[in-house]
């Protein structure tokens, strides 16, 4: 009656039981990797002309200066606000759009080609035009970030819907569920891992979009610090926002990963995937 009831182990328990699998914690290896990279960079970077390159300790000094004079904080705020707006709007529009395109063939025929094309669109070339439409400030940045991130989110969601097993849809149909209910109660949860992957991919694209927009406008945000210090041959200062952006993107990525395990815990357990 309850066969296997007692000897079913969950995957996390199985990991702990298995001895020789994890002797060194994951974070130790990651930290060591970063430290070694920084050490090599420091060692060789010091020999290079400071116009052509820089090294970690000089960049850290520039970082301290930018924090002290308040420029970094202001620039960060100027960048993060449009980032959050453009990126959230991309999620709010991209996910439902991908669900609808994936589920209904008419939407796929009408919009699929636009989304695929939009993903490949050389957005950099359009930024000057967008500047004409939206001006040089907040709005143009949010627009560029939105356009960079909405397509990977839509495409991933769409592909996710396409990969939902037909038999799960049959479960809904057999229970006389409407299309809307099947979409919300079956397709959406089944697609969540794909959606989260799209949202993660979009972080990188959104960061690139933000910097591109700030290059063109070059009056505010982290991108402006990059381009202005590059023009002054202050390479160490130029690296500060670049590294800040990388750290932010990595942080956002792990935040999304944590959120994914929160909303779709079954997925990690089915795949036997561990923390990443």
């Amino acid at each position: 009656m309850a066969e296997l009831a007692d000897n079913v182990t969950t995957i996390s328990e199985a990991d702990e039981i298995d001895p020789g699998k994890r002797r060194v914690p994951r974070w130790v290896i990651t930290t060591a990797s970063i430290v070694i990279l920084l050490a090599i960079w420091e060692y060789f970077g010091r020999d290079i002309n400071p116009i052509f390159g820089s090294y970690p300790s000089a960049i850290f000094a520039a970082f301290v200066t930018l924090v002290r004079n308040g420029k970094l904080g202001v620039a960060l705020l100027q960048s993060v606000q449009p980032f959050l707006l453009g990126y959230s709007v991309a999620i709010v529009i991209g996910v439902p759009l991908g669900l609808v395109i994936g589920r209904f063939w008419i939407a796929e025929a009408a919009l699929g080609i636009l989304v695929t094309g939009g993903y490949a669109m050389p957005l950099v070339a359009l930024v000057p035009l967008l500047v004409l439409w939206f001006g040089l400030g907040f709005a143009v940045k949010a627009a560029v970030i939105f356009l960079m991130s909405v397509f990977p989110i839509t495409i991933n969601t769409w592909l996710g819907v396409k990969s939902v097993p037909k038999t799960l849809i049959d479960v809904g149909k057999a229970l006389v569920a409407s299309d809307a209910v099947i979409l919300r109660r079956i397709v959406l949860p089944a697609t969540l891992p794909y959606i989260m992957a799209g949202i993660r991919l979009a972080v990188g694209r959104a960061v690139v979009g933000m910097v591109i927009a700030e290059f063109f406008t070059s009056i505010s945000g982290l991108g402006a610090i990059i381009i202005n210090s590059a023009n002054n041959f202050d390479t160490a200062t130029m690296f500060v926002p670049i590294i800040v952006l990388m750290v932010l993107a990595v942080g956002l990525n792990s935040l999304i990963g944590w959120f994914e395990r929160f909303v779709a815990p079954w997925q990690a357990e089915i795949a036997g995937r561990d923390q990443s």
Partner: protein
Amino acid sequence: MGEVSLIDVSKRFSLRIEGKPQIVRALDRLNFTVSDGEVVALIGPSGCGKTTALRIAMGLETATSGAVTIDGVTIKGCGYDRGIVFQHAELLPWLTALQNVEFGLEMKGMRGAALRDTAMKYLTLVGLADSVKRRPYQLSGGMQQRVGIARALAIDPKVLLMDEPFGALDAQTRETLQSELLEIHARTKKTILFVTHDLDEAVLLADRVVVMEHGRLQEIFTVPLPRPRGDLSAIRGSDVFAQTRYRVWRALHAGAQPLH
């Protein structure tokens, strides 16, 4: 009541084979009736159309011509008068066993406390009262299929349709579930139509066995075993079982021979 009739059911679809469109006849004027409370097995070689016939009876596919009636009323698509059990249970992986059964009830419009009570009642019926909080990946194949059966029964259909329900299970679990299905049938008196490729299973469980071949009905056998069929191992050793099994086996072979 719960009488299912397939009346002249045909299913054709076109396939492109090496670039040439060809008409495939999955079902060719299939006629049979399952009376109220009866258990009927659909058996035949792979590709004979038995699963297609079941899916048409469920309303998941439409017949090219012909009709399916439940108590004389022609079906239009799926309905709560029929419940289906899939070969691989097809539970929603993000829901617990209890929530999976509740899902079906919720679709039927049930709300509130009745939802949980009814779901629990049917999970208890299939012997899973202690594992209701588990998600599908924390259940064995046999337990998953029990949840699948509970989900189908919970909406209280007139007819239970099962598509090779025990085909993916190991031999021992299969035998346990077969006798449990007989118990459930004795208790609920549901009409059951099930597809199988297992000759023993067909004879053990069914009142009649429908043998199909190339989308056509080949022969219908009555199984003269009494109900309730409590002790399945005794039945397996009985002469009636052996003789019926042999008759159906011969029919299956007669149909299969022209292919070789």
